[in-house]
């Protein structure tokens, strides 16, 4: 059973389209995250949710809209896709507080905008 699963694993789309990536975790964690990994492999936080509530919203264009229907799911919707949105998007989850404190990552979703 995959702990953090993302779908789809790959998306190829045209500029201007809208796309969504879904994420689910079965670890019972309360906090979920979206990270973006660019072509230089740099990983940057985009959003995090705790129990369906947005708690981190980094400087991200408002074309990106996260949504958490419940604490086990965190989806990412992207409107009006641009070439610069091409990247790997990782979903992750963690327990609220205390040791061990690590994030568990999904396998990533590679988005290619043509």
């Amino acid at each position, binding site marked *: 059973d995959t702990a953090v699963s993302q779908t789809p694993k790959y998306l190829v789309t045209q500029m201007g389209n809208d796309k969504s990536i879904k994420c689910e975790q079965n670890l019972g964690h309360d906090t979920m995250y979206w990270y973006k990994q660019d072509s230089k*492999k740099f*990983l940057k936080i985009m959003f995090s949710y*705790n129990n369906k509530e947005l708690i981190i919203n980094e400087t991200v264009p408002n074309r990106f809209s996260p949504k958490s229907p419940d604490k086990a799911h965190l989806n990412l919707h992207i409107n009006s896709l641009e070439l610069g949105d091409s990247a790997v998007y990782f979903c992750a989850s963690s327990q609220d507080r205390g040791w*061990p*404190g*690590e994030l568990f990552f999904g*396998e990533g979703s590679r988005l290619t905008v043509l």
Partner: protein
Amino acid sequence: AQTVTQSQPEMSVQEAETVTLSCTYDTSESDYYLFWYKQPPSRQMILVIRQEAYKQQNATENRFSVNFQKAAKSFSLKISDSQLGDAAMYFCAYRRSRFGEKLTFGTGTRLTIIP
């Protein structure tokens, strides 16, 4: 703001030898976590080792160990008896010990294993 610096973009090591990857970080906090993650070509992010800041003892996981120097804000990873499967990007990461905190990553070190 917390920053994590990995000064070695690329490293290589002969199979069965030992290699050390460097990481420094900047923080004003006293309680935090440090991690090394591995990202092989499959792109999965895999936790290698973790360290809690208030613990003086360096963490060890099989062939992987860290040298944690809190005063110097240094957290290096030593890989002993390197294996071909160790080839990957290695990311150092920092997380404050608070509710809902993000993980801040360094820029990564690409490790190549020479057979």
